[in-house]
């Protein structure tokens, strides 16, 4: 009976334990160089995304989806298409929102937290968010990808985000998945699909 229980314990715990393993310092160095190299090559990026909002009292996460477009150096447009139309554009120090036809504009400069959020989003899309001055970072690997877990050092940021988890494609070093975990342990998971790099993106995408 004891052996059977031990077998069952191993059956359930070993896959979980085998999933993520810490990287060695040389693996971290290689991984970071690979990410920086991949990130430096990006002049533009477009992708579809699925966003899942997890709240502890829901059995199923709330799903929304849309398209993201990024253009160097700092043009970023999130366009939610399902289940509602909503877009948010970060452009030249401004945040432009189109909420189902209702348009507004906010100055990022007046809001330091918004400015940091902007940097964070662009960084997570490009992959160059691995900044140890801003975050305590843990690096892990698995058979399917590499993982970076970022804990903000800034106290204002900490109030909104407990942790950011980035999942990178093993071969291309591109960010495939972002998980933003709040202090309450609720989280938002964003999965990027159909990524297209360095294609022509019209400036009209970044206009409200």
């Amino acid at each position, binding site marked *: 009976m004891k052996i059977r229980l031990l077998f069952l314990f191993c059956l359930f715990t070993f896959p979980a334990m085998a999933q993520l393993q810490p990287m060695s310092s040389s693996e971290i160095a290689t991984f970071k160089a690979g990410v920086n190299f991949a990130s430096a090559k990006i002049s533009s990026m477009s992708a579809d995304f699925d*966003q899942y*909002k997890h*709240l502890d*009292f*829901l059995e*199923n996460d*709330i*799903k*929304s*989806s849309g398209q993201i477009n990024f253009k160097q150096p700092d043009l970023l447009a*999130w366009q*939610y298409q*399902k*289940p*509602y139309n*909503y877009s*948010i554009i970060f452009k030249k120090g401004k945040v432009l929102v189109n*909420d*189902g036809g*209702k348009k*507004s504009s906010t100055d990022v400069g007046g809001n330091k937290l918004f400015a940091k959020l902007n940097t964070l989003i662009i960084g997570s899309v490009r992959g160059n968010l691995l900044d140890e001055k801003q975050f305590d970072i843990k690096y892990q690997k698995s058979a399917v990808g590499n993982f970076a877990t970022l804990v903000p050092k800034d106290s204002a940021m900490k*109030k*909104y*985000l407990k942790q950011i988890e980035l999942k990178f494609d093993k071969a291309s070093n591109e960010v495939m998945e972002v998980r*933003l975990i*709040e*202090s*309450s342990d*609720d989280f*938002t998971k*964003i999965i990027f699909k159909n990524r297209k790099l360095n294609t022509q993106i019209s400036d009209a995408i970044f206009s409200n």
Partner: protein
Amino acid sequence: MRYFLINLMLIFLVTSCGALPEAKWKAVENGKKSIVLPYFTRENIVYSYKTNVAAYGKELSGILIIKKVGDERFRVAMTTEFGNTLFDIEISPKDYVLITAVEDLNRKIIINTLVSDFRLLLKSQYKIDATFNDGVHLISKSGGKDDAFYLFQTDASDVVFKIENFKGDKKKKEILYATQNNVFARKIIIEHFDIKLKMTMEYSVAD
């Protein structure tokens, strides 16, 4: 001088005592004893509304998520479109538990207003004390003069499309419902008349 003061007092009394809304309506005999609003009665359903809150010239938008978690107990959470949670409150008719709220919203006056509005939104059982007809609508009154709720229905259907909340003769707030199949609210507007606050909710369906 004495007559002048008496006249002044009379003017003050006349202008400060407005009439209750039912003064204009015709009383209906043998009205219903109770009304049940079906809009948030189902358990195991997640009600998700794209929501805009406009208060004193400022606006906040996001997704309002409501789930019935027990007998007259609800979890009500609002997130931004990006996903970060703005507030998460467990609400019952007598008390509430604030699970989380962002710093800008975590003020007693804001939380109390939200809880009060959501209690009204989620209240499903109304004991009816009087019924009226304004020529177009059937209006059922629940509660006394201090805190009265007027539930508006069209004569042809049982659907409650509006609730007005009066304290004395002053209209404090109202809820408007646009319904579907008479059991589900696809659009809801909560508007205050004593403060500048309006919440517009539109049902959003994920795939």
